């Protein structure tokens, strides 16, 4: 017989192959107020959220289209009262279900119900390796202990657990400790992901940008831990592109591998795509996921390589990284068709390095951190971000 083989599916070229992943941002409500949160500054309110039946339809359409992994995310997805029902439906239509949670507000009873509903995997955000650092990052108190209790409850029920640690200047000294905590909690995997600067993270970039030397040290720390913990803990790491030479293939390519749906139903090629204001995002209220994937102008806008200009269009890496991230190109160069400034061929590249060096060498000023929250009209202009109302009792804005 021929030796059997399972091959990790190769990155697909940017043609409208069916998507493999759907990020369902069920709500923007969240009990935490993380300084690095990638939710947009203008968060959607509860009254704007899709109802249960619409999400179920979206999940069925996604499965029919070929989506494999469904990420139930937010905000805090368990703030939705129908989270168990949605999980059960997604599992029944054959999706691999992953809950991306802060762990706060998830009771043991809810975990049991999610287990029974067929939830496949849980991803818990980790903001620090102890209470002090966690408090500084999340903008509230006591979260670390609750996360630890949650992690243990997850593992006790036999769920596979991934910790997602977003790294920045406030916690970059704790990477080895966070890895140790992951082992202690019984997680099978940890993602050490350096902050991507969108949304609240971009607003707080001056407080979050890590120093080059610290980034280099974490690369070594991760390497050492990977060898030591092989077979015990899988460590996936994403290093910051402000210090990189070439950009990353963003989200597997625009309109190539994944899509996101916002709480109110807008379908996006990437969760940061709304920063590109001239794009027309279709809503799942009006169109099926299949129609959106194959026919919506926003998904077509930067698909493949035909939208490119110099330096990307004549670059030999153009099918490798597809020019990097469109949202970062827009945010830092003003034009989403420019090369991602993380690329050395970008005329904005040295500026990016300068920003990183300048911001990271200043002392952290926690008082300057804008913890995420729902802002009241007028507050934004005054430069004040108001604390969110209780996430579970939010009134319509």
């Amino acid at each position, binding site marked *: 017989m021929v030796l059997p083989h399972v091959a990790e*599916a190769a990155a697909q070229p940017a043609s409208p192959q069916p998507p493999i992943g759907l990020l369902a941002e069920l709500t923007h409500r969240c009990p935490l107020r993380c300084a690095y949160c990638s939710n947009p500054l203008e968060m959607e309110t509860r009254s704007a959220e899709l109802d249960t039946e619409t999400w179920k339809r979206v999940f069925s359409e996604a499965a029919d289209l070929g989506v494999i992994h469904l990420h139930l995310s937010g905000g805090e997805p368990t703030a939705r009262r129908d989270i168990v029902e949605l999980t059960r439906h997604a599992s029944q239509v054959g999706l691999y279900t992953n809950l991306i949670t802060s762990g706060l507000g998830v009771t043991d009873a809810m975990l049991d119900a999610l287990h029974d509903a067929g939830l496949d995997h849980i991803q818990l955000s980790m903001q620090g390796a102890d209470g002090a650092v966690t408090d500084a990052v999340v903008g509230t108190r006591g979260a670390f202990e609750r996360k630890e209790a949650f992690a243990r409850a997850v593992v006790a029920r036999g769920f596979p657990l991934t910790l997602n640690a977003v790294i920045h200047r406030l916690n970059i000294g704790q990477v080895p400790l966070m890895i140790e905590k992951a082992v202690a909690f019984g997680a099978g995997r940890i993602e050490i992901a350096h902050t991507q600067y969108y949304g609240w993270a971009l607003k707080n970039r001056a407080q979050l940008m890590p120093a080059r030397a610290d980034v280099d040290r974490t690369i070594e720390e991760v390497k050492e831990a990977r060898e030591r913990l092989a077979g015990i803990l899988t460590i996936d790491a994403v290093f910051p592109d402000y210090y990189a030479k070439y950009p990353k293939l963003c989200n597997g390519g625009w309109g190539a591998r994944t899509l996101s749906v916002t709480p109110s139903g807008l379908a996006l090629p990437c969760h940061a795509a709304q920063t590109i204001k001239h794009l027309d995002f279709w809503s799942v209220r009006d169109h099926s996921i299949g129609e959106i994937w194959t026919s919506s102008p926003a998904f077509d806008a930067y698909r493949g390589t035909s939208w490119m200009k110099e330096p990307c269009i004549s670059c030999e890496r153009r099918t490798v990284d597809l020019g990097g991230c469109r949202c970062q190109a827009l945010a830092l160069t003003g034009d989403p068709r420019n090369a991602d400034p993380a690329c050395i061929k970008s005329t904005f590249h040295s500026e990016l390095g300068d920003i990183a060096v300048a911001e990271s060498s200043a002392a952290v000023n926690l008082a300057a951190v804008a913890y995420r929250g729902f802002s009241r009209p007028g507050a934004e202009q005054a430069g004040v971000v108001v604390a969110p109302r209780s996430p579970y009792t939010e009134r319509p804005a």
Partner: protein
Amino acid sequence: MSGLDDGTVPRFPRGVKFREDKVRGQHMLLGPERIFNADPVATQILSLCDGKRTIVEIVDALTEVFAADAATIRPDVESFLIDLRQKQLVTL
């Protein structure tokens, strides 16, 4: 390579799913953030991993499908499963 006991029962842990993808006409082994395409031979083996069959029973069933005897098939199946265990895709 140390061999597996006859009584070994390969299982998919929670969080790993083996399923047919009708859209792509392909069987897949799914983990968190991971997708492995199974070729036809891998599909045959993994379809027999139902959490009840032992490795002996799996190899027996395969002798009906492939033109080879158990002694030939067994080492291939073992190294395949041991490799998957290293990827945390099966427990043995």
